[in-house]
């Protein structure tokens, strides 16, 4: 356990020096694989210095597509959708005012709450975090997620009146 944590923290510290957002996205992925992938993301960085940012993002994207399980991709798409819906609601609130306020709270908080729950599901089902939740199977996590979401929807629909 301790050894794993060390293994994780080391590569995380190294990319942090590059001060880009990309390494932090990669960091959780690295320990799932063998130590071998670590050089893989490290190499594009050296290339990026020469080949530009486009190369960095292209590599990230390729790596994400190849190494991410399909369910996690689905989760990320849903998260993106929720961010979009939340941003639209907030934009509308800024432009058109917050009357009726309970409707705004209910709609916006519903989306944010769904986002939080989905993030939780993503954390619990990611293989990399398996060790943190030894008793939570993906099925159990999904069931929790559905129940909590239904409670959230029930509350929001009531509150919007």
């Amino acid at each position, binding site marked *: 356990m301790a050894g794993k944590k060390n293994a994780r923290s080391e590569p995380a510290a190294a990319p942090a020096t590059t001060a880009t957002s990309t390494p932090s996205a990669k960091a959780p992925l690295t320990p799932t694989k063998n130590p071998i992938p670590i050089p893989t993301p490290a190499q594009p960085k050296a290339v990026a210095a020469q080949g530009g940012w486009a190369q960095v993002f292209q590599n990230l994207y390729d790596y994400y597509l190849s190494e991410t*399980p*399909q*369910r*996690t991709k*689905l989760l990320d798409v*849903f998260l993106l*959708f*929720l961010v979009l*819906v*939340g941003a*639209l*609601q907030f934009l*509308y609130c800024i432009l*058109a*005012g917050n*009357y*009726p306020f*309970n*409707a*705004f709270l*209910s*709609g*916006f908080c*519903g*989306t944010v709450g*769904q986002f939080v729950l*989905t993030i939780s599901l993503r954390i619990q*089902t990611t*293989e990399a975090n*398996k060790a943190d939740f030894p008793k939570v199977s*993906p099925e159990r996590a*999904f069931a929790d997620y*559905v129940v909590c*979401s239904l409670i959230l*929807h029930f509350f*929001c*629909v009531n509150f*919007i*009146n």
Partner: protein
Amino acid sequence: MRSLLSLAVLAAASVVSAVSVTGNRLLVVLDDVAEKESYSKLFGSLADRGFDITYDTPRSEDLQLFHLGERTYDHIVFLPTKVKALGPKLTPQILLDFVNAAGNIMVALSATTPASTSTVAFLAELGISLPQERTGLVVDHFNYDTVSASEKHDTLVLHNSKPVRYDMWDVFSLRDDEFLALPHTVGHTLGAGELLTPILRAPSTAYSYNPKEQTEAVDPDDLFAAGQQLALASAFQARNSARVTVLGSAEMLQDKWFDTKVAVEGGSKVSTKNAEFAKTLTGWTFQELGVLRVEEIEHRLKDSNETNPEIYRIKNEVHYQISLSEYRWDAWVPFNANPNDPPQLEVSMLSPFHRLNLAPEEHSATDRTRTYSTDLILPDQHGIFNLRVNYKRPFYTYVDEKCTVSVRHMAHDEWPRSFVISGAWPWISGIGATVSGFVMFCAIWVYSKPAAPLVKKTQ
């Protein structure tokens, strides 16, 4: 024959009933009971109006204003008396108690007789001051009667065509060509009390002096009052609507001044209107005029038939109406308020949230009341509110009516639904998008391949 007889009885009954709303027992305090002969027309008029008149002197042993804590008279008239004080039965305190017990008092003074100390003290309690030495004479070298006082100028000839303030009831006003004669008048000045109203003020050229001491000239330092600050007749209406009037000239009530002809300098002789003025003054003092009565108060939710509910909701539309009638000599008639100064409704909790004019409603000629009403929207504040009409005007008895109602807040199901408000539709659709996105996500999740656990196991 019989119908004629009953008609006569009815007429007699109506004559008898033509009396003040507060009672008909009138006490006249004068120096000598025989003196009443010179006021016979005044007292005859009062007796005709149904007053039960008792004449007495301050020296009388069995004179009593209260018996077992109740008033024994409803009204008192004080005519000038030569006594220095009115004695133990008519002390200023007893007179004040009489006013507090809703008795009405009319005080007539004269320059020929100093006012008694009791009268001076009693009037001082009300904020009415009399000249030094309890006597004084008002003269005016421009508005005097050339017939009777061409030398001394001490009979004032006045016309009282306008009330003191333009928005007051002009009950004591005369036409421009009608005159009052005031012989041997004592002037008085009024304090700042809001219950005091001058009825008749001296013209701007009049002044008051003491004929015994200031025979040659009046030192400005010793001048009591001059011009319009001298009141010749004044009214005081206490908070319980009891009335006190002070008249500077008792002689103007005497018979001989009711029908003499007077003339101002350069004018022709005209007969005085003293009789009419005396009738109005006594009628007003003894509550035959200007007595207001609240007949009915009704408030209800608009479009509801339930009257005077105890509870309303904030921002309810409420209809309020109050019926007022006015006693005029012998009957209750509809009260017509000055249209520029109508009664107002206050919706108050500690302080008024609304103060609204009440508009008179249409009424038929047979009505005995006039209804004033308004529609209002209750304030956006819950709590205990008073619907109050506080109508206090000079020469009218006071109206102060409160209806206490509770105003509750909105119940949780009385708010408009969000889907009724178009502004909420984007957020409703936001929830819709979130929920449907969730359902689709779950469906795809269930049918999607789980992450390969084998890889994990090998690790």
